[in-house]
């Protein structure tokens, strides 16, 4: 595979080298014009090139330019952050009007890319780094920033795992899982240090950089093998003072929501389930009749708890003020934002408070740049946020469990006398949970401080500087609220009332501070940057140490050196050497440090003389890197897994007549003195190109990672009598391809831009400890990492549903339930022993982490109107629906909205196995019967904007006013055949619904 790509690249190069267009002598007349944006505001600093010629100029402050060109020449207009535009020169062109618009996604090769403690022009980047500007993210009120990244960058897989206000968590994996021991979460760095970024406001962010290959990750040593997301915050500019105000207001709407059965259907199916298992029906025909006619709403209630408690929309809003500017001596950027997300619960107001789930957040950031002396510059950054999460006193999960879990006939919500309804089996009343259980308030306060000082040391040697970087982050959480308990009443057969629970008066919830952590990180060292006759030398060396303090544990500490040497010649040939030597405290002294070297090379092929004028090829760079990085967050509990230690207190035993507990003590788990980090060896080969006058931009990258020393369980018999820590004995491989394409073209006044990114990455377990006695078809080795959530990857293979007793009699015996009957799932006898049991389970490759994920965007601009949309999709993904189809409990007989589609003698075409209440293990066994494609394609975001003419906005001294509407998660295309969102298949069925967001907003600039 690797060889294949190499050959491909070589072939392309050889092909391109044949286009040696000889340089032409230059003539032409003076062409002049003006560059403006869509609102007619002039755009200064745009580079204007005559294509295929060496002449260029820049636009001035009024957006004007002039240069010599001939008819038939093409002018190319480029600038950082705008889309490249083209103009075909006519004879004697004067006063050309060029309208440009802001670029999207990946930028040009002159863009700055943030790398650890430095920046590079994109063309100087030799490693696999994807970058996105903060301004390219949609202005959508989302409590989690990571949600907005989905589908935007190659190699970055983001999927949503929560949707409740303030808890819309995502999981992020870079490329794909490469370790089966830990969670594969990348390292999140904000301005260089590990900080949570999903709760930041999007307007604080200058750029998001995804570091994927060894040459960019080696800098972080033993903690970066899963990749790094580097967030850089905005800074002020000395050019001018600017203010912005952004506001959005919108609505969140559930996309898929359970549609519960009514009481009559429920009771009928419940009886069917009982009868299937040979029991008498519970509901008499009178009862069924009463449910059908709703003749007695108290004795035979019929509720739709989902409709009663879940609204069809909830308000969300966001407001951001920023100011930036400064002088040569001091520059500042400051931002203040407010975000408010309401929950979807109905009936959540009490006279004293609101118990609806909700989230409010204030973010504040001030970044200062101070030029103290000509030699010394200092950055002082302060970021802070206050997050206030509220949920019902019963807890959100418990409340939703009640709403989605209660059968429709559980009880009347309120009894005749106004008391809360309840029953022997169901004592959680959702109305009471909202009205009479108080609420929980959870306030998080975070303060992030950074000092970054650089002093030039030119007096020692030219190009040398020293740097000191220190952070001070504090974090705290305060939980409080009100609490109360309620009682419910059930009317008995002869009218008497049974009470369950005790009512207590409203009181204050026990409040508590938690996780008061303080994190300090220090990086200090020297930088060197000098160009001598086309030779560009750059070097960086840093010493680092970091400590995380929490009063309830030992401090977490790490330490090390990181260094990087870059050499380039005439901006065409590049070499980088990156190494780090880092240590962390949770390994045995003497085994704490590791050495992580990497090398990267790059060659801008298109700058070679033979290609310089090669027609359609504007830019071509090939690059590659190889190196080592480590992962120490593998989830081994405690700091001392390497030592054989004893707990002086562990468990106690109450001897004696007074039951005074006597202390227990014990050995800790058997140690692994050789415990170490995972080692990842990553190879990357990439190609970046711009073609057809920069209209087509493409990038492709092949990667191959081998990871070893992965923790795996030691195999030993239980007779040893004690658990043991895991051993570093696993090995995996991850390889794949990623790339993106952008195409921009102007059709008259309409500028269209189309882009797409694609990633394919597949993991394979090479070595893992497994029992020697397992059958070969049950081994994990050779399969991919992880499996389907709630099912795993070892499962039976189903063969439809038994239609008759004769079929059962003629099939191998299925040993999961005492009795197999028509309507039960039939399984394949994979080991041909005539019996179907757990030996017939086979290891599969089904996985709910996709192997392929992609996104494509389309954007366009016509005069003052702009439009953009982003589609995002995944494939190679599998989910299970057993959780949905068997939702419920013994108390509900596992009857739910999917039950009408169950097999029965009257419904032999039923897609799900028969209903049943006892001995259900045959049908609940792990099997591929329950698997469905988890692939989806989503309209992730769509936006339509209009920028008001600047003649209008000038009147209010505004530099621009744009109004827009946008939608997020509007549409989903999938093949599950049921009304779910496969990204979160159970959302809206047993947890908070998946939501789409529709927003209107303004952006006002001064």
């Amino acid at each position, binding site marked *: 595979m690797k060889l294949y790509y190499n050959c491909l690249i070589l072939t392309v190069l050889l092909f391109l080298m044949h286009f040696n267009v000889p340089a032409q002598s230059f003539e032409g007349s003076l062409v002049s014009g003006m560059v403006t944006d869509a609102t007619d505001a002039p755009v200064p600093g745009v580079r204007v090139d005559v294509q295929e010629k060496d002449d260029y100029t820049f636009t001035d402050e009024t957006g004007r330019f002039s240069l010599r060109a001939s008819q038939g020449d093409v002018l190319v207009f480029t600038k950082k952050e705008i889309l490249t535009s083209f103009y075909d020169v006519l004879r004697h062109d004067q006063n050309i009007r060029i309208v440009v618009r802001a670029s999207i996604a990946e930028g040009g090769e002159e863009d700055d890319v943030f790398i650890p403690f430095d920046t590079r022009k994109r063309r100087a980047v030799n490693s696999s780094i994807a970058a996105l500007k903060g301004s390219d993210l949609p202005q959508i009120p989302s409590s989690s920033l990571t949600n907005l990244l989905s589908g935007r960058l190659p190699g970055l897989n983001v999927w949503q795992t929560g949707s409740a206000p303030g808890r819309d968590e995502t999981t992020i994996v870079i490329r794909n899982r490469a370790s089966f021991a830990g969670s594969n979460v990348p390292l999140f760095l904000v301005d260089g240090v590990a900080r949570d970024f999903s709760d930041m406001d999007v307007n604080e962010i200058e750029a998001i950089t995804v570091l994927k290959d060894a040459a960019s990750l080696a800098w972080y040593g033993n903690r970066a093998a899963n990749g790094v997301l580097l967030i850089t915050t905005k800074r002020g500019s000395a050019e001018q003072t600017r203010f912005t105000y952004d506001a959005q207001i919108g609505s969140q709407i559930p996309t898929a929501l359970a549609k519960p059965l009514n009481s009559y259907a429920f009771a009928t199916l419940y009886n069917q389930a009982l009868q299937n298992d040979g029991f008498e029906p519970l509901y008499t025909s009178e009862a069924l009749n009463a449910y059908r006619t709703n003749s007695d709403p108290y004795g035979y209630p019929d509720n739709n708890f989902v409709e009663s408690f879940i609204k069809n929309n909830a308000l969300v809003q966001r407001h951001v003020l920023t100011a930036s500017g400064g002088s040569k001596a001091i520059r500042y950027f400051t931002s203040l934002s407010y975000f408010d997300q309401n929950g979807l619960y109905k009936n959540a107001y009490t006279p004293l408070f609101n118990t609806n789930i909700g989230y409010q957040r204030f973010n504040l950031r001030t970044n200062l740049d101070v030029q103290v002396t000509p030699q010394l510059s200092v950055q002082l950054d302060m970021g802070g946020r206050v997050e206030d999460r509220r949920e019902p006193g019963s807890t959100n999960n418990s409340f939703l469990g009640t709403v989605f879990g209660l059968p429709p006939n559980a009880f009347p919500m309120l009894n005749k006398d106004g008391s809360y309804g309840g029953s022997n089996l169901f004592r959680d009343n959702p109305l009471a949970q909202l009205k009479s259980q108080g609420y929980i308030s959870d306030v998080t306060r975070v303060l992030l401080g950074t000092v970054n000082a650089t002093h030039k040391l030119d007096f020692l040697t030219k190009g040398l500087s020293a740097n000191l970087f220190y952070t001070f982050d504090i974090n705290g959480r305060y939980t409080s609220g009100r609490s109360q*308990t309620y009682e419910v009443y059930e009317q008995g057969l002869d009218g008497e009332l049974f009470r369950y629970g005790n009512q207590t008066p409203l009181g204050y919830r026990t409040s508590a501070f938690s996780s008061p952590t303080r994190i300090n990180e220090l990086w200090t060292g020297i930088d060197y940057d000098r160009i*001598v006759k086309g030779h560009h030398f750059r070097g960086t060396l840093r010493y680092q140490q970091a400590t995380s303090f929490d009063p309830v544990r030992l401090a977490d*500490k790490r330490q090390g050196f990181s*260094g990087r040497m870059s050499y380039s010649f005439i901006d065409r040939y590049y070499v980088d050497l990156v190494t780090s030597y880092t240590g962390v405290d949770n390994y045995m002294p003497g085994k704490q440090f590791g050495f992580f070297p990497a090398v990267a090379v790059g060659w801008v092929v298109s700058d070679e003389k033979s290609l310089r004028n090669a027609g359609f090829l504007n830019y071509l760079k090939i690059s590659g890197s190889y190196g080592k990085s480590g992962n120490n967050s593998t989830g081994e509990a405690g700091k*001392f897994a390497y030592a*054989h230690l004893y707990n002086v207190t562990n468990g106690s035993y*109450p001897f004696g007549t007074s039951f005074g507990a006597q202390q227990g*003590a*014990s050995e800790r788990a058997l140690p692994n003195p050789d415990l170490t980090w995972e080692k990842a060896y990553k190879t990357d080969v990439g190609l970046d190109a711009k073609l057809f006058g920069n209209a087509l931009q493409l990038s492709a990258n092949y990667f191959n990672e081998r990871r070893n020393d992965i923790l795996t369980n030691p195999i030993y018999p*239980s007779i040893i009598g004690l658990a043991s820590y895991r051993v570093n004995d696993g090995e995996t491989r991850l390889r794949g391809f990623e790339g993106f394409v952008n195409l921009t073209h102007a059709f008259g006044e309409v500028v269209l831009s189309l882009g797409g990114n694609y990633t394919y990455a597949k993991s394979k377990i090479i070595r893992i400890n497994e029992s020697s006695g397992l059958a070969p078809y049950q081994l994990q080795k050779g399969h991919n990492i992880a499996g389907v959530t709630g099912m795993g990857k070892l499962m039976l293979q189903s063969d439809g549903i038994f239609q008759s007793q004769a079929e059962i009699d003629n099939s191998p015996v299925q040993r999961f339930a005492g009795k197999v009957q028509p309507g039960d799932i039939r399984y394949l006898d994979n080991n041909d022993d005539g019996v179907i049991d757990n030996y017939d389970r086979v290891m599969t490759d089904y996985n709910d982490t996709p192997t392929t994920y992609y996104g494509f965007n389309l954007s366009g601009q016509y005069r003052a109107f702009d439009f953009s949309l982003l589609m995002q999709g995944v494939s190679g993904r599998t989910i299970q629906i057993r959780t949905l189809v068997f939702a419920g409990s013994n108390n509900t007989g596992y009857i739910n909205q999917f039950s009408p589609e169950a097999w029965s003698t009257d419904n032999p075409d039923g897609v799900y196995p028969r209903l049943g209440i006892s001995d259900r293990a045959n049908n609940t066994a792990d099997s591929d019967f329950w698997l469905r494609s988890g692939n989806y394609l989503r309209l992730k975001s769509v936006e339509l904007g209009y920028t008001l003419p600047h003649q209008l906005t000038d009147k209010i001294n505004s530099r621009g006013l744009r109004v827009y509407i946008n939608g997020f998660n509007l549409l989903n295309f999938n093949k599950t055949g049921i009304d779910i969102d496969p990204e979160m298949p159970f959302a809206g069925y047993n947890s908070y619904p998946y939501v789409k967001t529709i927003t209107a907003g303004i952006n006002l600039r001064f």
Partner: protein
Amino acid sequence: MKKHTTVLAVLTLIGVTSCEESTFLRFDHYDGPVTEEQYWNINTAARGQLNRGYTFLQEGYNRYDGAMLAAGCDEAVNSNLNSEINIVNKGTWSSLRTIDGNYELNYNGIRQVNVFLANADRANITPATDIPRLKGEAFFLRGYFHFELLKRYGGVIIADRVFTFSENLDLPRSTFKETVDQILRDCDSAAIRLPLSPSQYGAGDRGRATKAAALALKSRTLLYAASPLNNPDNDPELWQKAADAAKELIDTGAHSLLASYSNIFNFSTAAYNTEVIFATAASARNDIEVNNAPISYNGALGRTNPTQELVDAYEMKNGLPIGDASSGYNPEDPYRDRDPRLSWSVFFNGSVFKNDTVQTFTSGKDGVGQTINATKTGYYMKKFLSESSTWNQVSNATVRRPWVIFRYAEILLNYSEAQNEVSGPDASVYEAINRVRRRAGMPELPAGLSKDQIRERIRNERRVELAFEEHRFFDIRRWKIGEETLGKPVSGLRIVRNATGYRYEPFEVENRIFNERMYLYPIPQSEINNTTNLRQNPGY
């Protein structure tokens, strides 16, 4: 150029010469845990090592989500039809579908005491005169954990030392006899070091192993060894040893029957009464009631439902089995004049609990089919339940209760059973069983029963006296009567209220499956897969 080279060299040099042993990353203490040397130097830690061994004693109140082992044999049905306990009832039991983690659990317990035994002599235990006794406790626990393995799996790998990774752990199983001998050795080692009975401990140490407990373990082990399952040739020598062991304990006089049967398990006021030889720690709890009380009692789950077969095993108050034509049993009034232990052990229609009447008739508040949790048989379990416990309230009253592992009545029945096999029904056989009957308020057994007849009466007495105490499940197996007791349906009683009273209709609750292989537990497949020498039990 020279300058650049210098800079590069410096960078490289600093990168390579670094802190192999960083003081910054070193901790001067372990945040709680201690080294082995420190550990054995701490009195409370060394004692704590042994104390922790006791935490591996298992209770039978809640083995699987509210199910008791009783529901895995003909004593009861679990009202949760999906309970894991049904794995044994439905014949789907296999090495890949096990019903408990006893294999690993007991070896974990054994390691605790082996670690103590290996280090006790060097441990800084004060006063050092306690060391022999503490070792005696450790020997007892080691024997007991091995017995828990033996009764489930047969002969097992004997763990008489602390295993380490550096040795070969792929060991073959010892034979049944070798395992029994190891348990007996540990019992003897324990008996010579331990005080006779709980009363010889200070009030704070009651509940620790005693010599009587070691003798009780010996009695039970030998009884199991002599029983048909493990003594196919019916070697009388084995029965003799079993009888002798029981007699040794009886002759110590350390224990006696408590006058009131119903008070044996009521520990809140009288912890460690004279009948209890050994029990787990009494933890304060109300889950026994939550799981087992009739469903109308504040949302209790009504889990353990005694079978009609068990109820029928209780004799009439006059000492005659209900099947006896002259017993006076009236199927239209089935609970009248029955063995008093029935009303102490089982809730039937009309029983009174917490000043309220239990209604198990079909439309009654606790009746069959009332809710999914309602009794499946028409009965609920009453034994172990406390009137003082409350649940599902804002603040609940919990009651201290241990799980009784050995009690004196069992030893008397052990003796009676073993001695009958040795000598036939001699006076001592009669006396032992009659003491148990007299205490319950039941007449003595009639004189002149044959050896076979009295064997049946002893077996029935065990069933009734020790109901729900995890004896029946294993007694059936050691008597090798699985096919006729477990391989058939269990039944319940449907009670229909009519104008004049009640109508009683027996009905079949569910079918049960029993195979020959189920006399022993399957060894978990993961253990077999991890080793080459460990042999599975036959049939699995």
